[in-house]
């Protein structure tokens, strides 16, 4: 009797677990959507399309890139956080922009940083500080000295409020006490170029991926890459570490996440497939042609990076909100 009961119980448990296990095993049995929170043709979108085209071959199901642009990524991330956690709706998270949207109360975001399950990071694009080719600032030191000597006069462009570039300006101010920049929030790299070439902007903070061709053509001068090691795309440009500001390390990263609550087995499967796709020579060649540095992080490593980025973003977001020079 007892045996029969135990058997029945065991069978019941097994039956209850079966659909989940089968679902994970059969995953994916229909197309997977990959959301990009920025318009088609941007660098996040390019990366997404390259990896999706390779991964879908291994998965046996189409991986469809959907652009849900708007409100600096907020529209897309809101959608991702609210999607059904079954592995069929994935999305790109762009750190630290995804974090600052959550952290800035003015944005009234209806999702939290814990609503995402990071799967794999694809690109880490370090920050870069650049000026016009004929600018009087020849080095990062020239710039910080000038920002100390005449605080709040150097017109310094971000690529949007609370973007990684905005936070990077605050990092420089923190590392060089007394230096104050006059921060101008522009919509992106194209607007920065107009401002700098037109003389209304003195210095711009952006990412290596957006500026490499202009540096190579000699139109602009990169003062420093905000990383601990030199960028392979700008080998002649010193790092902030070399310039004596080791704490100024800033980048924009792009990785793929799922809504929280996605079954672990599905996450594992996606992670493996995507990691394999990102190691593919075609993926590497296509991203490097765009000046995008590949940095694959998965599992605990990516989760740790995500949490650390969130803490850094939190500190500087609070500072940005209380900074007297708005």
């Amino acid at each position: 009797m007892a045996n029969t009961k135990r058997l029945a119980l065991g069978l019941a448990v097994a039956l209850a677990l079966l659909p989940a296990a089968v679902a994970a095993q059969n995953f994916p049995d229909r197309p997977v959507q990959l959301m990009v929170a920025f318009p088609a043709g941007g660098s996040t979108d390019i990366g997404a399309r390259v990896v999706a085209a390779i991964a879908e071959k291994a998965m046996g199901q189409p991986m469809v890139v959907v652009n849900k642009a708007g409100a600096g990524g907020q529209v897309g991330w809101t959608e991702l956080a609210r999607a059904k956690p079954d592995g069929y709706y994935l999305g790109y998270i762009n750190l630290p922009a995804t974090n600052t949207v959550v952290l800035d109360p003015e944005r009234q975001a209806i999702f939290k940083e814990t609503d995402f399950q990071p799967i794999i990071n694809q690109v880490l694009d370090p920050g870069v500080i650049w000026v016009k080719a004929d600018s009087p600032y020849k080095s990062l030191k020239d710039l910080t000295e000038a920002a100390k000597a005449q605080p709040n006069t150097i017109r310094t462009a971000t690529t949007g409020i609370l973007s990684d570039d905005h936070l990077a300006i605050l990092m420089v101010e923190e590392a060089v006490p007394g230096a104050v920049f006059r921060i101008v929030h522009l919509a992106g790299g194209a607007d920065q170029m107009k401002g700098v070439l037109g003389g209304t902007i003195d210095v711009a903070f952006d990412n290596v991926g957006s500026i490499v061709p202009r540096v190579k053509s000699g139109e602009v001068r990169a003062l420093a890459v905000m990383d601990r090691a030199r960028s392979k795309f700008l080998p002649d440009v010193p790092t902030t570490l070399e310039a004596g500001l080791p704490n100024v390390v800033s980048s924009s990263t792009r990785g793929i996440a799922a809504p929280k609550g996605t079954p672990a087995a599905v996450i594992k499967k996606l992670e493996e497939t995507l990691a394999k796709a990102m190691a593919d020579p075609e993926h590497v060649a296509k991203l490097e042609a765009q000046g995008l540095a590949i940095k694959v992080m998965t599992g605990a490593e990516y989760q740790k990076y995500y949490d650390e980025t969130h803490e850094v973003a939190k500190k500087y977001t609070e500072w940005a909100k209380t900074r007297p020079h708005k």
Partner: protein
Amino acid sequence: MDAATHLLGGFAAALSLSNLGYALAGCVLGTLIGVLPGLGPAAGTAILIPLTFNLDPTGAIIMLCAIYYGAMYGGTITSVLINVPGEAASVITCIDGHEMAKQGRGGVALGVAAIGSFIGGSIAALLLTLMALPIARAALQFGPPEFFALMLLGLSLVTGLAGRSLLAALMMTVLGLAIAMIGIDPVRGAPRFAFGLPELYDGVEFVSVVMGLFGVSEVLLTLERPYREVIRTELRKLLPDRVEWRAALNAIWRGTGLGFLLGLIPGIGAIIPTFLSYILERRLAKRPERFGKGAIEGVAGPETANNAYANSAMIPLLTLGIPSSPTIAVLMGAFIVNGLTPGPFLFQERPDLVWAVIASFFIGNLILLVLNLPLVGLWARLLYIPSHYLCVGVLLFCIVGAYSLKQSTFDIWLMLGFGIAGYLLRKIDFPLAPLILGLILGPIMEKSLRTSLEISAGSYLIFIERPLCLGLLIVTLLVLASAAFNLAPREVREVELN
């Protein structure tokens, strides 16, 4: 030399089979809009924007531009045959054009209008080619403060000249600016006036607004209008005889010059060039009493001016990003929907697109000549379609179009709401053009204002210290003052009142 090289490249792109197809489709659709009474170029262009969503930007813009000047071209047919202008700029053509049709010379009236439009349009497109690059290069000096002043000037020009009451025009401008503020704040990222509706986070959908304001409201107005009788006129003879030809040709040259020059001034609107050309022809005529009784110059001049204007009005749009008429404002919206901001930087960022579009103007003018001369009888047949069928079709098209924007029913309700609002505003004679202009220019103006103030750390002196910016602001003030004190030339004001 520079422009010639660019234009050749543009022709290479515009003459590709697909782009040629888009230009042809646009011309046909545009002529259709022009022919169908009650559906003006602004409404027609607005409701056709969703058709171009799946095209690449170059194809989409080529097609929409073709719709625009196709509509400007096609309006003549209804003016001549049923004494109802297919679009406002053909109002004046009714006078002598319809008279000619009654005398059995309808074919000649349509023929001379088509030839005049072709000459005027092509010459204006040629001058556009020569002038665009120097103007765009000069405008590259503009920083955010200058752009702010330029947008202010653009708004004030149209405000000062559109409609009967300056107050009403100003109110509509401010309403347009207010609607433009709905959505996420472009600098700080906070939602504004969204009432907690996620659908409004990205702002109100421009295409829904214009389809409602122009398309739906036109349908509602058309339902009120009485049925007009169509004149069956002789359409076999399209070319004027030698005496008429000489008179017409002179009117065509004058119309080209007049239309072109007025197109350079934002805010003139499409109607004034035609009225001024008519007045000019009547004054210069040896026997002015012929006017109103079927004078061919009364058709040739205004129709030429109309199309020269339509092409040269693209200059302020492409080089400065300032729309000079409601239709051009809708066209500018279409650029923005396609991710392109008209203005000096467009020549740097997408020279391939700009020059392909400019080249398509020449091609479009030729296509229209072919479409209009031999096929005019076919277009005239369309006039027999009862307007109630047409209204249902247009309304259906608007609804499907609004839904196709984002697959959201919210946009349909938004469009219908704006349709009713547009109908009521037109009933009480409030002009819609300033509203559309405020809606289109608002975001650019806000962004340049706020960037300017960030650059100057909050000091408004930045607008006065820069000579170019100060100059633009002074011109703006003069425009507003002249509108307030009725300083516009008497004839321009008379036109406004018609």
